[in-house]
């Protein structure tokens, strides 16, 4: 585009610039300076290196006023061809150009008709002056907007404020979804027409403050329905920085005024290139077993995470266990093998003794994500580490997943009297070792339920062997217990008065 019409544009710019400058002042020295400025601008347009870099002052630039040139050109062309009586009709620009919307620059010429007043003379209630001043206000051109009418000296030129705004800010916001104040023409709900301490003439102390003035809870009286909170313990960094990182302030083609379609890709745009953070796009697309919440849900990331802030780590919507139970309180179909997943909600309700990560979700390695990888994993049941599905698993050359938290010595020590290592002892014989550290070693889950159980020590009610559920028939005793599973007849163990289990083997 630029290459094709570049020369023409440059010529036009140059010609019009000459005309403008000649019209305004004229003079040899100024003309030379003007040529230099135009050279610089055209070099910038074509993105070329220019040998002599000159500093253009703001004053000079405002006098050149490229925006004005472009607009005049357009209007002139328009009126000549169609002879429209309203050349100032607001025009629509593509959504991604809104960032670069034209910012009208007011020239001395434009305000000639208005009678500028000195800043000293502005009404007292607008003093002291703030950091950013609306340009007509700065120039004292009150008459652009106000005209005294009767006993009201500050009556507006037009009854609808937005009509006045659109006189100069010619960007009309009409997309599929408009921000309600924009739709209703309440520009001044967010913007101060005179002055502000923050850029964009906002009413709040910052962008977020302006937004939260309405969008924080407690504003139900204003007729608000969409609330967010930024007071959580954990905050989403972009949200903390500015709402406009993700949202459009005026209008958008996507729901909730998002910059792009809300979905996986929207979040992944950032979450694939954050420093010290894994590449989520790669992770999600390469894992063998995908989590339905990520791959096959309505809300995608937002199923579990709050995009703004929350009191739970990873900005989860709820407690790290409760957020999972939001879906897993019913039996769902597993993606990996088509089988039905356990109804964990019901399982936890039925079995009062819970595994510590479930009992203490906010602790270290707490929550379901202590063992499961919620964004998908290469291991079955989206576990963080591979774990045997089988009943038998020999300890050798197997790095058991449970050892992430539980001490390995629980299994490997043959004799111990230390209750910290294991209480599953007959005298000093470690019965864990007897069950696991063998050619036909049993996996942890042969006897223990990894989620919850009615018995102590998470001992299962039933163990699955060759797709038959055999009861373990565990009976707890003060100093030990007994078990009568399918594997052997009832054996008792006692820490204080050994019953002689494992003695024969040792002998």
């Amino acid at each position, binding site marked *: 585009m630029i290459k094709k019409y570049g020369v023409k544009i440059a010529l036009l710019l140059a010609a019009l610039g000459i005309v403008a400058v000649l019209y305004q002042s004229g003079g040899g020295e100024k003309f030379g300076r003007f040529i230099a400025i135009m050279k610089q601008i055209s070099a910038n347009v074509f993105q070329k290196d220019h040998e002599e870099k000159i500093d253009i002052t703001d004053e000079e630039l405002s006098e050149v006023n490229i925006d004005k040139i472009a607009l005049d050109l357009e209007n002139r062309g328009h009126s000549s061809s169609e002879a429209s009586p309203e050349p100032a009709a607001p025009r629509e620009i593509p959504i991604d150009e809104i960032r670069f919307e034209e910012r009208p620059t007011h020239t001395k010429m434009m305000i000639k008709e208005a009678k500028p007043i000195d800043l000293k003379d502005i009404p007292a209630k607008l003093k002291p002056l703030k950091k950013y001043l609306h340009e007509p206000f700065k120039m004292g051109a009150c008459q652009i907007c106000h005209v005294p009418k009767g006993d009201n000296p500050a009556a507006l030129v037009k009854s609808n404020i937005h009509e006045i705004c659109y006189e100069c800010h010619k960007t009309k916001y009409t997309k599929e979804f408009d921000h309600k104040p924009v739709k209703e023409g309440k520009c001044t709900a967010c913007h101060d027409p005179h002055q502000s301490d923050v850029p964009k003439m906002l009413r709040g102390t910052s962008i977020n403050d302006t937004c939260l003035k309405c969008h924080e809870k407690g504003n139900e009286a204003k007729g608000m329905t969409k609330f967010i909170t930024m007071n959580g313990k954990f905050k989403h960094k972009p949200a903390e920085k500015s709402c406009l990182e993700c949202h459009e302030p005026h209008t958008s083609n996507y729901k909730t005024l998002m910059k792009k379609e809300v979905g996986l890709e929207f979040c992944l745009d950032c979450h694939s290139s954050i420093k010290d953070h894994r590449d989520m796009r790669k992770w999600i697309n390469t894992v063998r077993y995908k989590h339905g919440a990520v791959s096959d849900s309505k809300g995608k990331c937002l199923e579990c995470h709050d995009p703004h802030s929350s009191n739970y780590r990873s900005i989860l919507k709820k407690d790290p266990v409760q957020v999972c139970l939001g879906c897993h309180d019913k039996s769902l179909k597993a993606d990996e093998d088509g089988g039905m997943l356990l109804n964990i909600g019901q399982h936890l309700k039925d079995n009062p003794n819970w595994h510590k990560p479930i009992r203490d979700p906010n602790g270290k390695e707490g929550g379901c994500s202590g063992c499961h990888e919620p964004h998908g994993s290469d291991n079955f049941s989206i576990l963080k580490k591979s774990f045997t599905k089988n009943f038998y698993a020999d300890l050798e050359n197997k790095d058991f997943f449970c050892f992430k938290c539980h001490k390995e010595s629980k299994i490997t020590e043959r004799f111990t009297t230390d209750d910290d290592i294991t209480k599953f002892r007959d005298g000093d014989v470690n019965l864990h070792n007897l069950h696991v550290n063998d050619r036909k070693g049993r996996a942890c889950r042969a006897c223990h339920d990894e989620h919850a159980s009615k018995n102590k020590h998470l001992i299962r009610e*039933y163990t699955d*062997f*060759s*797709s*038959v*559920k*055999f*009861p373990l*028939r565990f009976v707890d005793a003060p100093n030990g217990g007994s078990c009568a599973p*399918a*594997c052997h007849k009832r054996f008792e163990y006692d820490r204080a008065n050994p019953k002689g289990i494992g003695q024969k083997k040792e002998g």
Partner: protein
Amino acid sequence: MILKIFCSLGVVIFGLWASEGVEILHPVDKKIHHEAYTGLTVKVHDRNISKILILTDRNERYTLEMTRECDDVCSKTVKLHPGENTIRVWGYKGEHLAYEAKSELYYVSQSLKGYKVPPKFYKETFFHTDKSEKECEQCHDMSLNEMKGVAFVDVEESNCYMCHKKTTTGKYAHAPAVNWVCSSCHSGKREEKGKRVSEMSKYHVPDPIHVICYGCHEKNKEIWDRKKYRHLPFDAGLCNKCHNPHASEHSMFIREVPNVLCTECHGDKKFPPSMRDNSRCPGTQEPSCVKCHNPHASDNPYFLDEPRTHTVDLGRDQFLFKSKGQ
């Protein structure tokens, strides 16, 4: 002569009268039996009977006191021995023998050679048919009450337990049997080669049984099916010929100790004399066939566990052996 006639008449009258007092409901006369125990069930017609005496032809006696142990139907588990068994039931009125009933049955042994083929007049009759179950249903729950694939926490809850509890006695018991998950093998489908047979027992397990065994022991199938030489009974799928699928006094639920089991068929084979001193099978109390032979399948001739490397002098025959120590 007159005395003879009187006597025979008396016997006939006694017989007619006797059969009315007590009746053996199970096992029916001339029944072929497949288990070592039978649940003897007696119906008592005469309420005046005070005591019932059960007598086997091996002189094993069981006494049932009418008032305490049974009402009008009494049952007792009776041990059988391979071959022909005669069970007599005597009903007593006080000390006076009043009624007699007897039942002859044949216990077919899967493993013992002399007891595999019953005489012709014994018939295959099954208890778990619709007709007999209907009769028992008046008092007993005859349904298969286990949940599919879930074992009982208390095995006595199983409806099968009361009559069949003796089948799981034994030092070594098969887990599904001792946990009474009967339906994992005894499907209750009453099918023979895919065909429904109405007079067949609901829980009859048709040959070859290995279809059911491999349901769980699938890894063994994978290993053995690849072998070059396979033992004939094993290859025919008759696992239960050697193994008792419920329980046994011997390890691996085999019906007899290996040597007895093997020589039932291989009667001509004897232990090599040089092996009788146990030196070639260290650590064993008794030389055993399975120390060197695999009873299922092997890649080596004679089902040897390892390829033979040297000969052992057996006197007349030359056997080739490899001892594990050398």
